[in-house]
């Protein structure tokens, strides 16, 4: 594509405005226009405004669940990812078993299984009642256990992207395998996988809507509850969609700025 543009520019200097039009981020204009139109509707239409303020009450829970779950799944993912590349066959197989198990089951099913089967089972073995753990905590546990497996694969790919020579150089300086991993391989691997982790943060924000099935009062659940009494399906679900679209757009813009800054740093 880039070559085609260059050739056109070189042979027909008069049509540069065309390439300008082709490269303009129209998608961004269209999406922000949709968001603006909806925002105006919310400002001027009392019905829209009511539904907006209702769903807004779930925003905090959505963000809370997303941020807490994502931070913890980074930790779990790092541990599992290191296990995945471990020399010890026991550790490696434990990690692979876990990761393949999680990746082989739909997320919605896992959320049910973890929240209503695994967590109560663990609670009982510790002599606690079935309902000892709140539903929000169960939702976070489920998301962490699921995303930990996904993020482990990102870390594994990052570690494997660092050439064998780096580990050899560190080892030949007398560092242990753990030291070489910690001071030489991991810092480079993590930098390489930051864009992929950013994508998973956005995915996590969207998937947090799934925990509405547990009755956790995040945005989707608040919207569903509201609809069940108001029957305003169209307004409610359009506004709910708008919420997620705006959040993911802001998040991906933030991540892009962050990435550009990191690249500028070298």
């Amino acid at each position, binding site marked *: 594509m880039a070559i085609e543009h260059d050739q056109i520019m070189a042979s027909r200097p008069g049509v540069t405005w065309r390439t300008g039009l082709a490269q303009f981020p129209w998608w961004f204009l269209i999406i922000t226009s949709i968001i603006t139109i909806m925002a105006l509707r919310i400002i001027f239409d009392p019905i829209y405004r009511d539904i907006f303020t209702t769903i807004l009450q779930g925003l905090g829970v959505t963000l809370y669940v997303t941020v807490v779950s994502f931070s913890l799944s980074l930790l779990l993912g790092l541990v599992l990812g290191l296990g995945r590349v471990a020399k010890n066959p026991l550790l490696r197989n434990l990690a692979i078993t876990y990761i393949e198990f999680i990746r082989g089951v739909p997320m919605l099913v896992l959320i049910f299984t973890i929240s209503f089967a695994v967590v109560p089972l663990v609670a009982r073995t510790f002599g606690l009642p079935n309902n000892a753990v709140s539903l929000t905590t169960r939702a976070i546990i489920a998301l962490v256990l699921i995303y930990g497996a996904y993020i482990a694969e990102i870390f594994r790919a990052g570690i494997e992207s660092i*050439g064998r*020579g*780096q580990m*050899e*150089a*560190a*080892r*030949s*300086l*007398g*560092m*242990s395998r753990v*030291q070489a991993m910690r*001071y*030489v391989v991991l*810092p*480079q691997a993590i*930098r390489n996988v930051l864009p992929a982790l950013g994508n998973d943060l956005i995915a996590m924000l969207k998937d947090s809507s799934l925990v509405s099935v547990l009755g956790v009062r995040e945005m989707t659940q608040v919207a569903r509850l509201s609809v069940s009494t108001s029957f305003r399906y169209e307004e409610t679900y359009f506004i709910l969609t708008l919420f997620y679209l705006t959040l993911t757009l802001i998040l991906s813009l933030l991540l892009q700025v962050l990435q550009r800054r990191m690249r500028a740093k*070298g």
Partner: protein
Amino acid sequence: MSQPANQPMILIENVSKYFGSFRALDRVNLRVEAGEVLMIIGPSGSGKSTLLRCINHLEVPDAGRIVVDGITVSNNEAHINAVRAEVGMVFQRFELFPHLTVLENICLAQQKVRRRSRQESEQIAWQLLEKVGIPEQAHKHPGQLSGGQQQRVAIARSLAMQPKIMLFDEPTSALDPEMIKEVLDVMLALAAEGMTMVVVSHEMGFARNAANRVVFMDQGRIIEQGPPEAIFGDPQHERTKLFLSRILH
């Protein structure tokens, strides 16, 4: 580590190494004395790099014995680390740590392995950067340096551990021609100071000026060895003659 005067710095006895069914090393025997500069030449796939990498256990021999400065290299992690602390290694592709500055590259292992303070390790790093002639690059990242400069930093990084032996695995083959000399000059200076060196390279200039002995390897075996003038001037084996005729134009 104190040792009897007749003990070699490196002793390689009957070492064999297989990669699958490929025999990379075939019952190799070699002695390297303290202060000796040994050069290993041979066609690619002859086992010269593998032999070098066996000395600090980056490759594990399938048979035979390697003794470095009185320590037998075994699978024992403590022995391996003890040997690696004595043996510095310089790689063809430098293998500097790209996320660290030049100074940090030289200080990392000093602090984590030798347990030196930040101040002490930096002082040593500055001395070595002076020695290899690039103190002005200390705060740059490896990616901002030329290949020759990177290789000189890599040498400084190894020297910071104060090794008794330096291994060089084709240290100039990834360099542009105009940068080879600056790296060879550093190696010549090291040789003049009496460092025990094992160098896998085809740099004839270095061989003539610094090597005490040249070993020619082919198909995992040592075919012949001797002083550089003998190997280059009057090779005895057909394979050595054939190889030299290909690299000496």
